[in-house]
């Protein structure tokens, strides 16, 4: 079914085209490196430095003690005192502060008299992720202060007769990079290979070179795979570069099976490039092909990869959407081999899924690509 010399000829022709466009070639190598640098250094999923404003109407030792806890916490960042709630709220509307702590007059007096003074707490709910974290960090600060106060004035808090022992597996230090760096490899290696291969076919359609395919006995599969091979090779280099960046630059050790990582990476690049080919098999213009590839890779590869929210906690609809994107499977492999110390034995379903994607994408491309102009 496949004529090897023809396949080779098409692959060589495509490779030559890429080599003749050094700017594109350079960009194809540079883009993953730059993106990896920006994301791995720049992104932080931890919510910290929440800007807060204080309205202290008491000015006592106790109000200062309570507020000192916030000043020393890495989760909060002091944005100044306000004389009234209205003034502080103005800052919140403008987006300069996200938490207002309003200490009432006679806070210290009521505290000592055990009259539970009311503290006004205002949290900006615009982004619920931030507000819910702010709420729980605030409550933790209150608990700390309560304990401190009890010890000083009332005696120790009632002792707990049990412990809840929390063990953080795979990443005891809870550092984002151990998930994020291997995860970003998956995000980057979907969009770049997909966009490159997506343009390769539709470009010929738009510029007319596809005539060579129409008028020669080249089969659809030969044409598609021939186009795909150079991009697979090119991105295998990217895979290696990203792998070594993770290892050496970001100091994320690989605890699991290296072969499992690279096998997964190879399959994933096959999937990404065939996704691009699929997009270009039915679009007519490069802009349409870019757009649809962006829609399918840019945001979903990030949101549905399990990096932001574990797949297991997505609502049913989103859970199946996520399963329909290839990213999550390679995130499992990449994070699994790097940080969880796993190998084929635990990860094998992910390889099957990637193989299935490759088969489906390739067959669909064959179905949708026309051998003759309509």
């Amino acid at each position, binding site marked *: 079914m496949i004529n090897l010399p023809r396949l080779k000829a098409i692959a060589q022709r495509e490779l030559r085209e890429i080599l003749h466009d050094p700017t*594109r070639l350079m960009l194809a190598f540079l883009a993953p490196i730059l993106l990896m640098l920006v994301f791995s250094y720049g992104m932080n999923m931890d919510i910290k430095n929440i800007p807060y404003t204080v309205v202290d109407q008491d000015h006592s030792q106790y109000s200062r003690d309570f507020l000192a806890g916030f000043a020393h916490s890495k989760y909060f960042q002091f944005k100044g005192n306000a004389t009234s709630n209205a003034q502080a709220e103005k800052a919140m509307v*403008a987006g300069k502060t996200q938490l207002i702590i309003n200490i009432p007059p006679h806070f210290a007096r009521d505290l000592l008299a055990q009259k539970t003074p009311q503290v006004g707490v205002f*949290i900006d709910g615009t982004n619920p992720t931030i507000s819910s974290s702010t709420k729980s960090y605030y409550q*933790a600060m209150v608990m700390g202060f309560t304990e401190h106060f009890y010890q000083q004035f009332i005696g120790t808090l009632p002792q707990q007769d049990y*412990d809840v022992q929390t063990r953080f597996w795979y990443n005891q230090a809870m550092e984002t990079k151990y998930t994020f760096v291997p995860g970003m490899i998956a995000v980057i290696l979907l969009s770049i290979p997909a966009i*490159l291969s997506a343009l390769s076919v539709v470009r010929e359609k738009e510029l007319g070179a596809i005539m060579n395919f129409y008028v020669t006995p080249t089969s659809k599969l030969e044409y598609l795979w021939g186009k795909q091979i150079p991009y697979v090779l090119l991105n295998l280099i990217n895979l290696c570069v990203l792998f070594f960046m993770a290892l050496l630059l970001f100091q994320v050790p690989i605890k699991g099976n290296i072969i499992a990582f690279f096998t997964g990476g190879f399959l994933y690049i096959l999937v990404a490039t065939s996704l691009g080919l699929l997009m270009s098999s039915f679009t007519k213009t490069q802009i349409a092909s870019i*757009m649809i590839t962006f829609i399918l890779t840019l945001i979903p590869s990030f949101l549905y990869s399990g990096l932001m929210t574990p797949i297991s*906690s997505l609502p049913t609809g989103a859970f199946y959407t996520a399963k329909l994107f290839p990213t999550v499977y390679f995130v499992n492999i990449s994070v699994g081999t790097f940080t*969880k110390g796993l190998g084929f034995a635990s990860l094998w379903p992910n390889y099957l899924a990637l193989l299935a994607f490759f088969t489906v994408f390739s067959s669909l491309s064959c179905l949708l690509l026309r051998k003759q102009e309509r």
Partner: protein
Amino acid sequence: MKAYIRHIFILGLKEIKSVFNDPILLTLILYFFTLDVFTAAHGINLEVNNASVAVVNQDHSQLSRNLVNSLHLPYFKPARNITYPDIKPTLNKAKDTFVINIPPNFAADLLANKHPNLQLLVDATAITQAYLGSAYMAEIFNGAIERYLHGMHYSPPQIMDSRIRIQYNQSENGPWYLGTAELLLDVAILSLLLPGTALLREKEHGTIEHLLVMPLHPVEIMLSKLWSNMLIILLGFCFSFAFVVHFGLGVPLNGSFIWLFLGTLLFIFVATSMSMALATFANNIPQHAIISILVLFPMVLLSGAWTPAQSMNPLIKSLMVLSPLKYYFDYATALIFRGAGISMLWHQLLALLIMGGIFFSFAARRFRRCFGVG
């Protein structure tokens, strides 16, 4: 002057026509403004929400049942029962993010003051949920155990009463925020992609030569591409904001629509000018696509839409000062959710205006050099 405007108008009409002649492209633009916003709003959750839990219950007492039942939505899914040997595969395969191990005789040991330990095992590669989720869980368990020991109406000692109020998005509605954020990001993506690609398409097809030999000023060609693409995106935005975000998702508009419209117009101007400027650096569409990824990916992922801007790396944070999307995002969310007036937001508008001026004049100069006749 009159001829000048007429040229720009007619060339722009041609541009709009070419979009309408590409049904796939048109569908994709529509998708961006409708379904994409909807799915993003309801697809993911960035808080600890719906987190999945497995439990190894070796106690089978009333207390252990209470503990399991105390985990509830929206924070946690109902716990799944597993056996002790299943713990490792469960976390390895990311089937669940949390595993609770209740040891045999937990309740009896607790009553006998034998200080039993409850184990909470967390997949710490789930960076967004591991820390907060385990903190929530420990709090919930403490409450459940205290109630078991001291009666249903037990509440821990309290020295102050924090009245926490969530402002602006009082119900902490995630879809409101995520849907709005998605629309703003979509505006950025389209503005950066469409005009530059349209320009390069003319270059690839050679039709730019036709335009340049006509008695047209290169800036006229550029302006025509700008206004036509801006119009398409602006109409899309208004439609999407009204029917998808406002009526569909129910997001209230607390500020003035006029200012939202003007701010969006200004941002689209900045982003489309930026797109033109970038296109002058590319020789063909594939180059432009990678350059766009390089600019768009960081701009979108670091805009603060999903990850809190305040916890970013300081270097990257200062780089974001150059991103127009950052200003637009802050501007639009303050206006929509917090009803901010223009007196608080003028500096974002000013920043956009300056950027627009810079990008536009830069693009115009480069445009003349790249395409113009001397």
